[in-house]
């Protein structure tokens, strides 16, 4: 684990990478890293996120500034620009039920080859997927999701990278930390090793590759 400056985070992320970004309608997104991506005009990203937030917020900024060519999300209804780019054919959108998205990211992080879920059976989500019947009930076989980079936001880290999230800013962040080759965490504060109780740590530091202190934008 290495502590880097906020500007340095961006040198790690290459054009055309796949990137998971934490947050739920902007709450708990790594806003400072997102700003760096926008400023450095990185493009062609495949984004995995819960939603595309609002045009001026979180993942929404990456859409408005055309950093993404594909997104895998559960919801785009709060960002008209996402809908426009999708309709114009500028942006490929894969819609995934939110719970299935969470389980697929988890599966990618914990080494499962797939999961069987009833969500989506009999709907358009079923298209092209294998249906498995167990004890008379149908399930979709959903496959794991992984990405090159996780960009997540935590409230604080210690110098070993142990993470503590804040309230509903937790959401998808802990799941994404396990599911990506390189994990970059934006925190508001780094605290001394030993100052966090082992029981209050939400994610052990062993998953984390880079930490950058970003302060608090809102």
């Amino acid at each position: 684990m290495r502590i880097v400056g906020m500007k340095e985070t961006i040198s790690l992320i290459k054009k055309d990478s796949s990137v998971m970004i934490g947050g739920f309608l902007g709450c708990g997104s790594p806003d400072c890293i997102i700003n760096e991506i926008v400023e450095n005009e990185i493009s062609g990203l495949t984004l995995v996120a819960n939603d595309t937030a609002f045009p001026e917020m979180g993942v929404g900024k990456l859409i408005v500034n055309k950093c993404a060519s594909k997104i895998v999300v559960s919801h785009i209804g709060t960002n008209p620009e996402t809908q426009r780019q999708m309709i114009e054919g500028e942006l490929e959108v894969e819609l995934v039920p939110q719970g299935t998205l969470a389980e697929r990211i988890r599966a990618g992080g914990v080494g499962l080859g797939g999961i069987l879920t009833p969500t989506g059976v009999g709907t358009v989500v079923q298209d092209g997927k294998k249906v498995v019947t167990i004890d008379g009930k149908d399930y979709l076989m959903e496959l794991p999701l992984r990405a090159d980079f996780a960009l997540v936001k935590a409230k604080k880290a210690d110098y070993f990278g142990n993470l503590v999230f804040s309230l509903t800013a937790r959401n998808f962040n802990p799941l994404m930390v396990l599911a990506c080759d390189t994990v970059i965490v934006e925190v508001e504060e780094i605290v001394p090793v030993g100052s966090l109780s082992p029981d209050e740590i939400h994610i052990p530091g062993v998953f984390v590759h880079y930490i950058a202190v970003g302060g608090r934008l809102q």
Partner: protein
Amino acid sequence: MIDPKERIARRIGRELSDGDLVNLGIGIPTLVSNYIPAGIRVFFQSENGIIGMGPLPEKGMENGDLTNAGGQCVTALPGSAIFDSAMSFSIIRGGHLDVTVLGGLQVDENGILANWMVPGRMVPGMGGAMDLVTGAKRVIVAMTHTSKGNPKIVKKCSLPITSNRRVDLIVTELAVIEPFPGGLMLKEKASDATVEEIQSLTEARLFVAEDLKDMV
């Protein structure tokens, strides 16, 4: 007369029991939190990861780290608990959620709900709707009976469906309807409407309960 949306929300409030874990969707369902019957305590879950969500904060006491599933700042009631998205949907998909109340675009005579997209016109994505309808113990649809005069309770959904699971109750400003394996049962009607009027605004055939009551 009471506003149609408030009437729907108030009626749904009476479906809740003490100790229930409840998820309310955006729109009419949100109003249900104003009509919790006296003497019972229900817990509100929000799919972004909280049980025990409280009302909007006082001005100047908002914090961007504590929001609801609509992205609005909220408060945390005493005893509230926070968790990640996997746990949030474990609650929903694992059958631990007692009641979900969602809006609807269409419900058909098999009790199948469509509420997440209108092809070519509105594609917001399903968010957590498919998980909620598939996983909750009880699914209640809260919607106006018609849209621009057109029935929303139809023979067969023409819109993409949300789940193949039959919903448990449909509450509109005119009727309380319970889907059952044979069709749709009209259980309650607005006191100012006749069964014939309700049927005329409903494309699907309604069976009428023997003990048909007035909505309260």
